[in-house]
């Protein structure tokens, strides 16, 4: 295997692993957050506006960790800096 193959394999496998492992934590957290919000909505329907707003903000903040993983995997696949470096070296030879 030359270096370009190694870089390609490592990038693709790592992109898959990144999104697969990185999604587990945020999804568990979002599930807990929504469950708790529903419980408190059932107990206090009057405070629904505040609970919903806080829930949305919280969900977005939890979700952003999954989004970071997504961005990293997209960079690994479509805008890989090591890949560009390897291509430049091969072209330079």
């Amino acid at each position, binding site marked *: 295997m030359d270096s370009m193959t190694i870089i390609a394999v490592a990038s693709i496998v790592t992109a898959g692993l990144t999104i697969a492992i990185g999604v587990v934590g945020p999804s568990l957290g979002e599930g807990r957050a929504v469950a708790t919000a529903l419980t408190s909505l059932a107990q206090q329907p009057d405070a629904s506006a505040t609970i919903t707003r806080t829930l949305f903000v919280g969900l*977005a903040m939890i979700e952003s960790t999954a*989004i970071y993983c997504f961005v990293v995997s997209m960079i690994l696949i479509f*805008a890989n800096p090591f890949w560009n470096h390897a291509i430049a070296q091969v072209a330079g030879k």
Partner: protein
Amino acid sequence: MRLSPDEMIFWQYGFLKLNATILFTWGLMLVLVVGSMLVTRRLSKGLERSRWQNLLEVVVTTIEKQIEEVGLRQPRKYLGFLGTLFLFVALSALCTVFPGFEPPTGSLSTTAALALCVLVAVPLFGIEGQGLGGYLKSYMEPTIIMLPFNLISEVSRTLALAVRLFGNMMSGAMIIGILLSITPFVFPIVMTVLGLLTGMVQAYIFFVLAAVYIAAATQIRQPKSEPLNPPPKPAKETPWTA
């Protein structure tokens, strides 16, 4: 596949590039500015209003109410900055219904610029709210040991603001692009609708987070020596009325 509309270049002269992000940003700015100028040219104070004035009034009062609910006492003071952030991000998400339009917030340059605006605006509002010394003192709030961590959090939350908005808008465009090549018939429309919802939620999130940061920077702390008056407890005999 393009990662961002930055790579769609229309005109280039040496270092200067005119890409899709800049063009669509200018277009949105034009729509927002010219639209509101046209609407506010003939404002009526009476009971009879044009429908566009009604629309703008609904938008402005809603944003004002949201700012107030976050905890800022005088929403008028922050309406210009926060409202502009919200309207720009929301309009750029809404305009994705037009074919050929790429949201400028799907480029990391735009979101980084917006987040930098927040990074600069928070200390300015904070200094205005509690004075230079009071604001600087808030960095070593529990103890002086926390000073570097407070500084790090200032930077990291700016990065988080930028990457969150970029990731959400970019993923919406990218999922539609992938689905168009797999199931080009109905599913892209469903994902576009979902993308509209996500875009509006992200605009709201960006706006609320900026408001929360400003509220945290401007609040004047109560002196600790002040005796705490606990609020009067409700009478125990009162039955719960659900």
